[in-house]
């Protein structure tokens, strides 16, 4: 089996195993845990597409998350549109915002720290706008009424939501598989590693980065829409505030940027950590984020390539001991 086929088999195995969880257990706590870990994986993987594979560190991915969430809520509340129909609209809307911001920033060659700060500023502008205008519910936020039925994308148990977010995660994994094995991904990683060299061999960095931010934003929008369906509520702070942006980037970096399973690992590890602290110290405001921040600093100092990076180094060591050099 080729490396690409092995990876596909891995994704299929992951999908089947996780999809079986609702059949194995009816425990609401377990199902909720798996669902939230998948949701964290989704936003980490979305960030990873642009940050890990494209090398463009965004501090403002909430911009796309919030746009997806608001479109999902507003389409149902003010447009009377079915939630299943609203979902692709939310994804497309988030992708469009991503393309717009990408066109603006990449057109002027923004990179590194400047790109990070500008994405943050964009998210802040949207947050202030969302508080100031009426159709977002202003400071009060929007509440989507509860009408439990599969036709409304509202499920009586966490199991249904788990399958929905699992489908989104699998789609994201397939995209990263394609980035690892396809031509576009090779262009993207070439631009990340050396933009001038990539341009010299005929890659158009602007277009490639634009494609990456569009994809990344689309998945972030899907996560936003999912959030609205699960919690039936959105306001400007949740939608465009820094918490989502931070969660996405920390999980991706902790797990390992530019890898397929890194963000999955990172999201799960962080989730287990935050659950453990909740059990140890109870529901204390801020404690989660203290842990996220500490883990981020430690990872950047000691293992900048993330958990998946440790695995790679170990494997390489193993291979070189076996007399192979690569």
């Amino acid at each position, binding site marked *: 089996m080729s490396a690409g086929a092995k990876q596909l088999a891995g994704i299929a195995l992951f999908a089947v195993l996780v999809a079986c969880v609702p059949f194995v257990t009816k425990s609401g706590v377990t199902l909720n845990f798996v669902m939230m870990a998948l949701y964290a994986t989704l936003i980490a993987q979305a960030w990873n597409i642009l940050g890990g594979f494209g090398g463009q*560190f965004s501090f403002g991915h909430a911009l796309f998350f919030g746009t997806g969430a608001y479109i999902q809520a507003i389409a149902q509340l003010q447009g009377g549109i079915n939630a299943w129909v609203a979902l692709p609209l939310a994804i497309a809307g988030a992708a469009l915002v991503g393309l717009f911001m990408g066109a603006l920033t990449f057109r*002027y060659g923004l990179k590194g720290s400047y790109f990070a700060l500008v994405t943050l500023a964009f998210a*802040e502008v949207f947050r202030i706008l969302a508080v100031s205008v009426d159709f977002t519910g202003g400071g009060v936020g929007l509440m989507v009424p509860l009408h439990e039925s599969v036709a409304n994308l509202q499920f009586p148990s966490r199991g249904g939501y788990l399958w929905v977010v699992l489908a989104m995660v699998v789609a994201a994994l397939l995209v990263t598989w394609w980035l690892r094995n396809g031509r576009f991904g090779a262009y993207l990683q070439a631009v990340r590693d050396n933009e001038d060299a990539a341009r010299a061999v005929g890659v158009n960095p602007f277009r490639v980065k634009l494609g990456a931010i569009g994809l990344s934003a689309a998945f972030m929008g899907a996560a936003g829409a999912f959030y609205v369906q699960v919690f039936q509520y959105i306001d400007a702070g949740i939608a465009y505030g820094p918490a989502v942006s931070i969660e996405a*980037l920390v999980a991706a970096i902790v797990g390992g940027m530019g890898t397929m399973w890194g963000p999955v690992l990172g999201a799960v590890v962080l989730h287990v950590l935050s659950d453990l602290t909740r059990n140890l110290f109870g529901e204390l405001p801020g404690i989660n984020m203290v842990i996220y921040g*500490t883990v*981020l600093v430690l990872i950047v100092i000691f293992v*900048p390539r993330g958990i998946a990076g440790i695995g790679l180094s170990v494997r390489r060591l193993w291979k070189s001991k076996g007399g192979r050099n690569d």
Partner: protein
Amino acid sequence: MFDFGILFPSVLNGLTTGAVYALIALGLTLIYGVLHIINFAHGASLMLALYAVYFLKEKLGIDPYLALPIVVLGMFALGYALQRVVINRAGHGKDENILLATLGIAIVMENLALLFFKSDTRNIDTAYSLSTVAIGPAMIAVPKLVAFAGALVVSGILFWIMGRTDLGRAIRAVAKEKEGAKLMGIDVDHVYAMSFGIGLACLGAAACFLLPAYYVNPQVGGCFVLVAFTIVVLGGMGSFVGALVGGFLVGIVESLGGLYLGESLGQIGIFVIFIGVVLFRPQGMFGAKA
């Protein structure tokens, strides 16, 4: 709408706020100019300094202005230690890593504050908090005037340190040519940590001037961090004069934006300026062409 009687106080108010902004931005631009890193924890550090001023007043009864030497020294020590222990080790030759490390520090600081001090917004009560002085048609709060004058004095001291002392010369030498400075016997890691310490010490001074007319909560740093970046980018990364002028400009824009667009929408002006400057004139007003 463009009545002088309304416009003048608003501009004056903007100037006083702008002076404190300038002080915050001076710290940021010093760190950038020397270490070539963006300190994302700048706002969160200011928040810690504000809490220090608050607790010195509430628990020990020390007036904010008298607390200045204590807070400045404390922030300097914090900055020196942070740079030596954490940030210096995080780079691995990539700017983004440092940005991530300082982001992590900011997250930890903000949420530790949330954990220990709760999300309540606090302010202090001093004898002069509510007193005002008339300047032409404008009534200006005394703490704001003190902040204006104090920020200018501290900026002056900073200019003196950078221009006239051995430490300043060493800092400038390291900023310009790290390897050369090292060959001349300058301890580069020490100079880095000193610069970071001085950058945070500016925040200590700013906090003492701010709190009598302002408030503190765990999120307060977030309001300042982008404002400070805007000023620094506007003035040209690493430029001291730019930070001063940029501080006043942003203070006035914010004040006028609040006047004409309302309190919440008024903040947008700063972010729009930031995005605009980064996109169209990343070298700023006083920076060299990149």
